[in-house]
């Protein structure tokens, strides 16, 4: 058994990297995989908060790298998924505390025992980003359907290709089908036209994300089906395991009605 290392990155901040990392890690664990999520955002850590594990942190990634603890001691077991672990970032240090080769070493130590390692990258194109992609076998680029995040995604895809980590896979996050229909939001086709990389997920805007983030419980653990963000995360997880899952239908008529119905009555 040898783990696949997947890095979630975006260039622009606030597009949903951490939410997607937490949900994909959880979804993969729910499929029975052994998963370790690593927060590479040293100094601005969030993944622990989103996963509801903040109060269990004793050691972090920097402690591992600087030899203050063994790797095992920094792996926080998830509250709900028995095969899910988090290696948190340090909050009181900065990106320079870890080097790309440290990240490769940590992942290589984990590989024999783990199925998937998910790395949550910080925003930006500097050291933190290079740390996050150094050990990656696959890179997921997150973008929102608006021009500035697509612009940054394009830049980051170029950097990933330059590091020979391509082809990156694209996740379009926070899609609002009704806005696309009105022509107020970039459509999936518009985004793909610019970025021209394989699509691996489309996550619809879903206000339950906010609720689950504040509760520290990834949304995939709640059982909404149909056209929902939760189902979209599960689909991406299945695609990561190699399954061929068709994309959800976001088309307007009669899709919108079904989608709205799901939003209102589905939970």
């Amino acid at each position, binding site marked *: 058994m040898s783990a696949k290392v997947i890095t979630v990155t975006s260039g622009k901040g606030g597009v949903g990297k951490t939410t997607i990392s937490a949900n994909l890690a959880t979804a993969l664990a729910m499929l029975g995989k052994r998963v370790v999520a690593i927060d590479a955002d040293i100094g*601005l*850590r969030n993944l622990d908060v989103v996963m509801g594990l*903040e*109060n*269990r942190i*004793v050691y972090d990634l920097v402690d591992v790298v600087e030899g203050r603890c063994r790797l095992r001691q920094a792996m926080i077991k998830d509250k709900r998924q028995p095969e899910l672990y988090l290696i948190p970032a340090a*909050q*009181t240090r900065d990106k320079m505390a870890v080097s790309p080769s440290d990240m490769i070493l940590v992942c290589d130590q984990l590989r024999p025992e783990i199925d998937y390692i998910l790395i949550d990258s910080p925003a930006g194109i500097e050291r933190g980003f290079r740390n996050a992609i150094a050990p990656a076998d696959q890179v997921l680029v997150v973008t929102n359907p608006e021009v500035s995040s697509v612009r940054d995604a394009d830049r980051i895809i170029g950097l990933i290709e330059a590091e020979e980590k391509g082809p990156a896979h694209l996740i379009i996050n926070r899609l609002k089908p009704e806005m696309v229909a009105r022509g107020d939001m970039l459509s999936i086709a518009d985004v793909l036209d610019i970025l021209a990389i394989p699509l691996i997920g489309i996550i619809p805007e879903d206000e339950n994300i906010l609720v689950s983030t504040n509760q520290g419980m990834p949304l995939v653990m709640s059982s909404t089906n149909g056209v929902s963000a939760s189902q979209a995360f599960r689909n991406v997880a299945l695609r990561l395991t190699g399954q061929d899952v068709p994309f959800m239908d976001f088309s307007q008529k009669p899709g919108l009605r079904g989608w709205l119905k799901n939003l209102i009555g589905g939970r």
Partner: protein
Amino acid sequence: MTHRTETGISIKGIRDGLLVTLGDGEYADVLVRLDAELAEKQEFLQGSRIALAVGQRPLQRQQLSEIQQLFARHRLLLWTVLADADDTKTAARELELATRLPGSQTDLDGKQLQTPLPDRQPAPTPIGTGALLLKETLRSGRAVYHEGAIIILGDVNPGAEVIAAGDVIVWGRLRGLVHAGALGDETAVICALDLNPTQLRIADQIAIPPETRRRKSEPEQAVIRDGQITAEAWHSR
């Protein structure tokens, strides 16, 4: 309780079980003596966790494994090996044994841990008997270390760390992480006007507030009682 026999093997009660120290002599002899010693005291020792101090004696992985099995035959769990020799430590780690006692202030190789220095923080002004007074709110990412007591006139937000060798007093809301008695003082206390931390540590104890904890906005203090960190209402004595 220390029990040293004529065999040179000592058995001592420690907080996490028993500390067994091997005496001098040939490895094979020591093994035989240990076996006899354990057989004699089997009923008394049964089920204990064992920390084994081997001192300078170099032991191969295979020898450690033999000792581990010997303990197992007496229904004792060997979980840590305290050795001076690096090779012995490496061998112990290969057998997934610990090489130090929990809460000790040394790293995995037995070297004294350095107290991390505050980086890029302005030097705080110490007052009185080694206490540190900070008149500000500590936001996420701030870390304060001090080899004495720390008094904060302000809040400690989630993501901030306060680590003190002595007591920690927060004249404000404590929502982040506080470690009092960080060098091992179990009598250290943590008090706050509103005690609602992410995590508290006193000496080598760690506590997470229960999720169902009702919110009290009265001054509280956290202390170690019966080996556990307990929060209680603050009463002046």
